[in-house]
């Protein structure tokens, strides 16, 4: 049997093929820099849209093709507030808070990932939750070793959050800015 593996990791029969048949015609100028057409696929657009989902590719000839769905901000996963890093390695950055529980940590798998601060636990340092029923926010300690402070007080139990509260985790300080509250609520 002449089954061999090409440099890209494809298996093919070298007795019936002079070179890898899967590489042939496969290359499409990878690595060649091409200008990207500028198109408005903006977040503003996504925010304004209503319940319906947005297909990026929806023309009839695309029928059956793999189509992407942009989750519209409303209904599925809307932003309900922000954290802004006001002190620490990521000073100046903002983080989106979405519905239900938001897990905060250094790992990319976290809902809110604060990469720069090595003193923050990788996973579940702190949890911020938004309750759509009462339109309120709470902060709770995660299950990691790291302590969370809210306005200089240690967070041991879930506590309510108000605008401009300061959350301290690791060596970072985050200011809480709600979008949802008395003046606004997603319908």
């Amino acid at each position, binding site marked *: 049997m002449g089954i061999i*593996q090409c440099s*890209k990791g494809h298996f093919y029969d070298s007795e019936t093929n002079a070179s890898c048949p899967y590489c042939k015609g496969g290359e499409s100028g990878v690595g060649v820099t091409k200008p990207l057409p500028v198109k408005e696929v903006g977040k503003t657009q996504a925010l304004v849209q209503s319940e319906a989902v947005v297909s990026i590719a929806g023309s009839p000839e695309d029928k059956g093709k793999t189509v992407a769905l942009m989750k519209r901000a409303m209904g599925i996963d809307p932003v309900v507030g922000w954290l802004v890093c006001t002190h620490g390695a990521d000073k100046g950055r903002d983080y989106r808070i979405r519905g239900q529980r938001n897990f905060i940590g250094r790992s*990319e798998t976290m809902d809110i990932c604060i990469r720069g601060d090595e003193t923050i636990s990788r996973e*579940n340092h702190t949890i911020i939750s938004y309750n759509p029923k009462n339109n309120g926010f709470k902060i709770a300690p995660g299950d990691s070793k790291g302590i969370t402070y809210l306005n200089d007080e240690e967070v041991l139990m879930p506590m309510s959050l108000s605008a401009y509260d300061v959350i301290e985790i690791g060596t970072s300080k985050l200011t809480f800015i709600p979008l949802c509250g008395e003046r606004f609520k997603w319908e």
Partner: protein
Amino acid sequence: MGIKKAYEAVISILRKTPAPLTEEREQNVQEREEKLKFSFGNLQHIGKRETQQDAFGFSNTTDKEYIMQHGIIAVVADGMGGLAYGKEISEEAVRYMLAGFREGGRGSSIREQLLGQVYELNGYIHSKYQMQGGSTLIAVYIKENNLYWVSVGDSALYLKRENRLYQLNKEHIHYNTLCQKVFLGEISSNEAWENEDKHALTEYIGKDTLTEVDCNIWPFVLKQGDKLLVCSDGISGYLLESEIAKAMEGDIRMCCQEIEQLIVSKQHPYQDNFTGLMIYCE
């Protein structure tokens, strides 16, 4: 302190990500089984499309020493046809996963490594292509008898074990979201079924933020005789599971030929590109 402990216990039940696999447990799982040998096969076809936007690759499987040390990774990416750059992105995604595999461990557990790589890849593709293109991605990683997978989008991982076929990954399609709504009584099952967007992807590589990545928590222990099929939806979306199961009966290279011939013989007018990678546990 009593309250805090109780609260922590509740939180650990509610926690979203499980604790990383401890060495001890990982070893226990491995020792239960004899070490397996693997053989491989692959198939790819353009279908009724003008371009091939699927990409795939295996890590080096010829060097037994290397496999013992590093394991095996197999990757399939299905570039998104409706968007520009589908092929480029799927090729890049496969290369990225294979390269990351060669560089070896960063995170503490295999799960964390796979997830980390996928999130990194997504960030890279998103910033480079700015939602002008995307790709699905499915990768399986095998170390000794343990199988791990990571998947974003609607590609599939099947296990054929003792005449039964199992799909191991969860597909990120709008239909699954709709089914959840059916479960909550928000819509009827008919509404879910008739939704025009039901096949649309809810997650893909190149998205602004990945909200869900499918990745197994504990290693899945493979057994002698198991066959794995890692494929794009050009296979899983066009064949019945019973057909896939039947086609996966013989020798692994025959299986690949059979799947290809079966799809070609169906002559579906919109047949998508299709790609399948097979791994047989000897």
